[in-house]
């Protein structure tokens, strides 16, 4: 079925342009992009006042399958992605078993083909079992379809090991996604270290726990030439280190999550376990630095670190609660409410961080709408508002600190390979 997207503003994140164009889609591809298109046989999608964007890709998602299907699975996770305007996600390897071999990667891809609503790009592990001891068969992982490598959640503490990981991954041209955390500095920490942790009596995690590792990994990337992507950057010091590294030409990219550019440690008050996340929510000055990093391009990517946890894993005493929060369904709303509307990012800049930059890092095509290209399209209505309602979330888990937040700027169409999977805030599959 051909579709004609009429009257929208086409966003080109690479040329940083906004152009009023109609887009005709057929057979999974973009057939034509021009003003005032007509196609009598096509179903018309009215995009007046909306941004027509290359399909968004969230490069940091935990789909939890295999092993933790009670939290999320590939079906529910990609439904959440589609609701959130993402046509693709990259999923982290901390499943059970860990995605440290081709069999698990194949399994994920097969499941995604069967039940996935959006595209799924698995990320393979850096080390076997993410134990930080032995290299994985990276070439095998790559051949099976892994788009990058990471031991997310389990930082490689041994610098020598990390050096070998980067040498080997660099040889294959695979990006290493680093969860930068020095566990000896975290040392059982539960939230950001500062006045709030002191008052709540919760062990604090210093900014240095992240910054020490960011610095180390930048130096190793510089030495090895391996492309390094720093996940979920949360501190002003990290932003500064990345900015310096980029200025001297290190192949480093970085991401920030919506919660890290929106919330501070204050969100933990009242022992709110939905605000318990690693890296922790930091101070206002860190939030400002992250926003500045997004604005000046130091931070390339906005990714959610979507980390679903079951109700009973969050409904416990704070120190026993699992780390992480879900983000797929609130990301676009937060980007528009927190970054685009206040003028921190232009729409093309925001879409670059949500669509084109992550694809470049993962060596995936797309990220720009073009005639003949794949019809992965996200349409965003910048004026549409919605209050976050846990009952309406597609994710199996509801662990978000944004419940009852009113978000403005929401995806109204998610189209994967020419087929709408979400339209007018309703899933079609």
């Amino acid at each position, binding site marked *: 079925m051909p579709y004609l997207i009429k009257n929208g503003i086409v966003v080109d994140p690479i040329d940083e342009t906004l152009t009023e164009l109609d887009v005709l889609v057929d057979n999974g591809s973009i057939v034509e992009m021009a003003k005032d298109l007509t196609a009598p046989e096509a179903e018309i999608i009215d995009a007046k006042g909306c941004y027509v964007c290359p399909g968004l890709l969230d490069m940091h998602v935990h789909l939890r399958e295999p092993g933790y299907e009670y939290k999320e699975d590939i079906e529910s996770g990609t439904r959440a992605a589609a609701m959130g305007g993402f046509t693709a996600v990259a999923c982290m390897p901390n499943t059970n078993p860990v995605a440290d071999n081709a069999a698990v990667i194949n399994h994920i891809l097969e499941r995604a083909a069967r039940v996935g609503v959006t595209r799924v790009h698995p990320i393979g592990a850096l080390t076997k079992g993410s134990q930080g001891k032995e290299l994985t068969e990276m070439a095998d992982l790559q051949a099976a379809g892994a788009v990058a490598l990471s031991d997310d959640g389990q930082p490689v503490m041994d610098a020598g090991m990390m050096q070998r990981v980067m040498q080997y991954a660099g040889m294959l041209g695979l990006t290493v996604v680093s969860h930068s955390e020095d566990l000896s500095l975290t040392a059982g920490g539960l939230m950001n270290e500062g006045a709030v942790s*002191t008052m709540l009596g919760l*062990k604090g995690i210093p900014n240095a726990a992240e910054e020490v590792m960011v610095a180390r990994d930048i130096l190793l990337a510089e030495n090895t030439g391996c492309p390094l992507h720093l996940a979920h950057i949360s501190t002003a010091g990290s932003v500064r280190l990345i900015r310096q590294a980029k200025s001297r030409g290190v192949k480093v990219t970085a991401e920030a999550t919506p919660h890290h550019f929106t919330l501070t440690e204050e969100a933990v008050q009242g022992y709110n376990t939905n605000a318990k996340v690693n890296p922790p929510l930091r101070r206002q000055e860190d939030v400002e630095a992250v926003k500045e990093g997004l604005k000046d391009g130091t931070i390339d990517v906005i990714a959610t670190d979507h980390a679903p946890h079951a109700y009973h894993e969050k409904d*416990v005493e704070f120190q026993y609660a699992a780390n992480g929060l879900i983000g797929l369904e609130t990301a676009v709303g937060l980007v528009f409410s927190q970054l685009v509307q206040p003028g921190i990012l232009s729409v093309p800049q925001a879409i670059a961080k949500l669509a084109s930059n992550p694809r470049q890092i993962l060596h995936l095509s797309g990220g720009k709408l073009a005639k003949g290209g794949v019809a992965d399209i996200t349409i965003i209505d910048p004026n549409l508002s919605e209050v976050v309602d846990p009952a309406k979330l597609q994710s199996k888990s509801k662990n978000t600190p944004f419940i009852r937040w009113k978000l403005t700027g929401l995806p109204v169409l998610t189209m994967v390979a020419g087929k709408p999977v979400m339209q007018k805030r309703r899933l079609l599959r």
Partner: protein
Amino acid sequence: MFWQRKDLLGLKYLSVEEINLILDTAIPMKEIIGRKIKKTPTLRGRSMVTLFYENSTRTRSSFDLAAKFLSADTIGVAAASSSVAKGESLRDTGLTLNAMGVDVVVIRHPASGAAEYLAKYIPAAVINAGDGTHEHPTQGLLDMFTIREKKGSITGLKVCIVGDILHSRVARSNIWGLTKLGAEVRVVGPATLMPLDIEQMGAKVYTELTPALEGVDVVNVLRIQMERQQQGLFPSLREYSRLFGLNQARLELTKPDALVLHPGPMNRGIEIDPQVAYGSRSVINEQVTNGVAVRMALLYLLTGGEYDAISH
């Protein structure tokens, strides 16, 4: 004024009036403890459970006696012997006790925020008897009661808290309560045991004992946990004692009538010299008596009839 809260979770949440109401109510309670017949029928038919996930003979006995002096029925649930060991959640344990008709749950728990978490889910009154490194409000109140009784008023006093501030819920409750009532609170201890930004709670921070003790009206000495040394937070008990132990000579730096408090149990010869602990300035034993009085006052106030519940 009347008591309006369902629970006592921390001194951070209390107003000056509420703190004073508790301390004022503890005065007649202390009179009862001084009687030959230590019993009033006040809380007949009321029940209190002590739900302790950490051992503490002192605090538990104090609550137990407080309840018994007021004729409430009490039971104790020790974490090790209960379904806690079977992995029952705190919420479910609380709901079970509540369903059995318990009026007050006194909880001690290693996790900060546990009392607040429990209070959210059960209609029974919850008293925080120490949650992780967050608060120990009844200890704070008994310290304040002791100081007020000896000094007449807390306003304008200088109070120095010595020791492991980082891990101390006693220090936190004292800082909140004392600063609300107009005292100047100083905290002193090794830099590795000093929590970040504690100034924002209203305390003055020192890492040297001498200036911290100068001219203070009260010294509150905290217990140093031996395990902190194994965690590498200070080098040895010897050095700790040399830098932060309270002895007679150091006590001379304080005002001549300064009081010495210690929440107990003491490590004699380490954080406090026996000469000081048993000396004329020490009110350590009175703290224990006052602890019962303050807990009686709380049990009385929290077991009122119908109240407009404020969550904390």
